């Protein structure tokens, strides 16, 4: 399973961390990869710290245990840095993408993490493009830039299809989410 990539999503209940992991999984599956996308179901409360995961691989994935050593971490809310150890289990050459107005250097120091740290103001991007502070789709854009998991053109085509399915009854938000993903892809920095 040399090709296995594991991703951990940190969010707060209601922010769409689970949706982000599912969207990423579905788009990766469309590009021919084997995938898993699953949230950790604890007590579900709006605003409480929650987790979701992805496994992405060229090979068949048979693992059905939790992800404990993700090489990629996405953090949907900056205040989580003060309450959750988001670097837990992440190898020193891992990648962490944080929704934050701070620059990557500041966050990297705060996390005391050796690996690659990127930041993007996902709330700001979402406010501008979607009109509401949903950080999950912008974070997908940021994640694509930071990790190169899926070629961005392919990712955009795939995510459009998934958003069309998800928002079949709310088509007006599809373009806005796509714009948010593109803007975050541009603005994310390490």
């Amino acid at each position, binding site marked *: 399973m040399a090709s296995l990539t594991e991703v951990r999503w940190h969010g707060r209940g209601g922010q769409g961390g689970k949706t982000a992991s*599912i969207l990423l999984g579905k788009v990766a*599956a*469309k590009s021919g990869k084997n995938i898993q996308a*699953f949230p950790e*179901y604890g007590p579900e409360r709006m605003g409480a710290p929650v987790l979701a995961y992805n496994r992405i691989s060229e090979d068949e994935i*048979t*693992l*059905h245990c*939790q992800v404990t050593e993700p090489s990629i971490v996405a953090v949907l809310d900056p205040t989580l840095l003060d309450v959750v150890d988001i670097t837990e289990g992440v190898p020193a050459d891992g990648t962490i993408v944080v929704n934050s107005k701070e620059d990557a250097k500041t966050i990297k120091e705060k996390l005391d993490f050796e690996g690659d740290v990127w930041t993007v103001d996902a709330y700001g991007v979402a406010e501008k493009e979607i009109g509401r502070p949903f950080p999950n789709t912008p974070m997908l854009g940021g994640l694509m830039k930071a990790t190169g998991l899926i070629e961005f053109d392919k990712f955009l085509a795939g995510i459009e299809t998934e958003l069309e399915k998800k928002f079949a009854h709310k088509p007006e938000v599809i373009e806005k989410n796509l714009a948010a993903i593109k803007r975050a892809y541009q603005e994310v920095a390490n």
Partner: protein
Amino acid sequence: MSEQVALTGNEVMSQAMRQINPDVVAAYPITPQTAIVQTFSQFVNDGDVDTEFVPTESEHSAMSATVGASASGARAMTATAANGLALMWEVLYIASGTRLPIVMPVVNRALSGPINIHCDHSDAMGARDSGWIQLYAENAQEAYDNAIQAVKISENKDVMLPTMVNMDGFIISHAVENLNLLADEDVQDFVGEYHAENPLLDSENPVTVGPLDLQDFYFEHKMQQAVAAENVKDVVLEVAEEYEELSGREYGLFEEYKLDDAEVAVVALGSTTGTAKTAVDNLRENGVKAGLSKIRLYRPFPAEEIAEALADLEAVAVMDRAETFSTTGGPVFADVRAALYDMGADVEAVNYIYGLGGRDLKVEEIESVYKDLEEIVETNTVEDRVQHLGVRE
């Protein structure tokens, strides 16, 4: 023609039900099965199926309505989990004893109390002697494939017994995985039309269903049911062969993973078997002759076949995701150990109870089981026959 999709286990199961297009579905929602019923009722509402959907006020009623529908000659399904299955209890026996070929996805979840919504097999294992066939799945693909095959297994004239299609709660039911769906028409052709032999609604040929059956005939009817259970293994294999022609996917009574030349092995069922495959691969890289037997058909239990597959091992660990409180180990252990005993196989068998209430089981923990087995082989001593794996003490 098949289609690559990425869906949750529950979505996949509701797709299987849509493609089977049963005449009647009577169901009551319960976590973690809810999405099956919710999605299927949307199919009913959208006219994607011809099914008469009966929303009931409890699982007891759901199973009762399914029994009524099946007895009337309809192809009938329901789905449940955990305490919902427990509430169906008395009607489960009526379904199997009346020889009704009902197919029911069970999304395995711990029984209360304490209350817990996550995966273990205490629900289905408690119902292992209810006369239902039980199939278990490693992943969403297998759960889907089992559901479609179950229709044909249950409705076989030599069987006519209901089937539980088990799928691990949350781990499979709520996780998105990529898999292949068959084309609708292929599933329709595969399951065919159901023609009940003695339907209640055939007014030309009136029959009585479920009459009083006392000392004079009850035993004979139970004997017939036992004979039908004996027939299940062959039918499961026949149906699997036919399904392989359609899907290209191979199924048996159980899967042998690197078992041929193995010295130590694990026997398990459900989603953990996937994690165990990685443990086997890791151990093999380090020269350990590790193997895995993944049980698919648990009821009726293919004792001879499993014992034969394990007979050449030096030691085997049986994994149970249910506690029986018998103090002598879990249900799968009891069956496997008895099968080995009957065969006269010289294989040490030990038991690990794991994963209760959704407790995660990691690759390293499964590897530790194989290490224990190696030690048993080396020292020729079993210190603890039954252990609990991954629990704090």
